[in-house]
């Protein structure tokens, strides 16, 4: 199993823990992630809010690099995943767009590079059975709220990620790890991440509502696969407390961090020390596999 790996900018910044845990888990499972040499920013929200051609050209340039490697592209950031998929959709469905992007990037791109999120690879290529066999630890029945947010599941006719309204990929991984995925209504709600610096009060309100739903479901942690969701939920719990008067101590962990723990990887190698809200509760419920 060999893939072209696109880490995305947040891997070296706010989501170093996501990157560290993804690499550690891939290594352990024998998944070869070859970093795309010279990769650049996908443009994120800033590009598509500014200019449609710029927004398609930045991801296209990266997918062209991956194309030369002849491998499927694997991403860990939900936003990069979304931008790449949207670009593939735009250039393959519109000849005019394809021509504009080719002119801007300097070579034609037909939208043919397969883009996959690491969790899709884990579920589809590695498979639950092999994962189960590789686990040395279990989550010891820990209740986990699997949170998907927006960018993986929408627009669904473009991302084709699991199910648009009730995705279960993360839930299935949680259950395979011996955790209990909870049934809760917040799965595909928006955390507000795009407004994190500009309209913080909106983020606090939306992320606060996600958190309240997770608390009500009895979850001991929320697991995510998106660095924006992680940042909004983890970083803003004190701000939420100010707004609602309720105290929150909800660990927000990447799915790859949970998987890493169950594969017996030390917490530090998974970047668990970088979380704002301590993951102590998660670590405590971790048990050796019988």
């Amino acid at each position, binding site marked *: 199993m060999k893939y072209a790996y696109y880490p995305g900018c947040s891997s070296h910044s706010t989501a170093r823990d996501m990157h560290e845990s993804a690499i550690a888990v891939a290594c352990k499972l024998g998944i070869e992630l070859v970093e795309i040499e010279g990769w*650049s920013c996908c443009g994120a929200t800033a590009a598509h809010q500014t200019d449609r051609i710029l927004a398609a050209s930045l991801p296209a340039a990266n997918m062209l690099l991956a194309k030369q490697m002849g491998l499927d592209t694997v991403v860990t950031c939900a936003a990069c995943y979304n931008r790449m998929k949207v670009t593939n959709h735009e250039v393959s469905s519109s000849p005019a767009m394809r021509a504009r992007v080719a002119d801007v990037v300097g070579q034609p791109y037909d939208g043919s590079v397969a883009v996959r999120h690491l969790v899709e690879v884990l579920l589809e290529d590695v498979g639950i059975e092999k994962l189960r066999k590789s686990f040395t630890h279990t989550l010891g029945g820990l209740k986990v709220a699997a949170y998907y947010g*927006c960018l993986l599941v929408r627009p669904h006719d473009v991302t084709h990620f699991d199910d648009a309204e009730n995705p279960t990929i993360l839930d299935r991984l949680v259950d395979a790890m011996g955790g209990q995925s909870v049934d809760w209504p917040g799965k595909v709600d928006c955390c*507000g991440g795009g407004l994190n610096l500009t309209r913080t009060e*909106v983020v606090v309100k939306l992320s606060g509502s996600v958190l309240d739903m997770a608390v009500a479901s009895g979850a001991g942690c929320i697991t995510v696969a998106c660095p924006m969701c992680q940042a909004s939920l983890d970083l803003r719990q004190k701000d939420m407390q100010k707004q609602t008067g309720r105290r929150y101590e909800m660990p927000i962990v990447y799915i790859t961090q949970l998987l890493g723990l169950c594969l017996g990887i030390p917490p530090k190698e998974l970047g668990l020390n970088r979380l704002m809200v301590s993951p102590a509760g998660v670590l405590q419920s971790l048990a050796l596999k019988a």
Partner: protein
Amino acid sequence: MTIRINKVAKGTGLKAIVEEMSGVSLDACYQCRKCSAGCPVAGPAKSAPSEIIRRLHLGAGDELLENGLVWMCLSCETCYGRCPMQINFAAVIDALRSLALARGSKVPEGNMPLFNRMFLANVRVFGRSYDLSMIAGYKLGSGSLMSDTEKFPTMLKKGKMAILPPSGADKKAVRRIFEKAMPGKGKKQ
């Protein structure tokens, strides 16, 4: 709800140009409002997707570019995902934003255009996002220096904010993209 629009003159509404820029036709919208029911910011923005579409139907002009939803929209795509007519309203909002920039509309609360400019300026220079510089630029420009200051020391300590600029990107390729896609724009910070 009553919708008032300032019809400037016949045929000058934004609908046609927005449809062209976004590649989305709004004619099939029958105002079922599923989009608005799912929009997470319809409340704080004091506007909603179906309302914007109706305004466009009725010939709304540049005043629409200052509607609260234009810059508060999170691009969460819930409106598009739930529309029975598959109208990609998120793309419509992106077109409105591009138009608002081009026509120099009033700066929205929180100054998202400034944030985007800072983000893209750093990508243009480094080929990748440089959060520290981007945030500093945004904070200086927007005068929001004091917000979140308590978070930065912890983030730095925990390695959640890189101090040095990113390296490794094919900067030449990125610069070409910016120059070709947006000629003459974004050169200065």
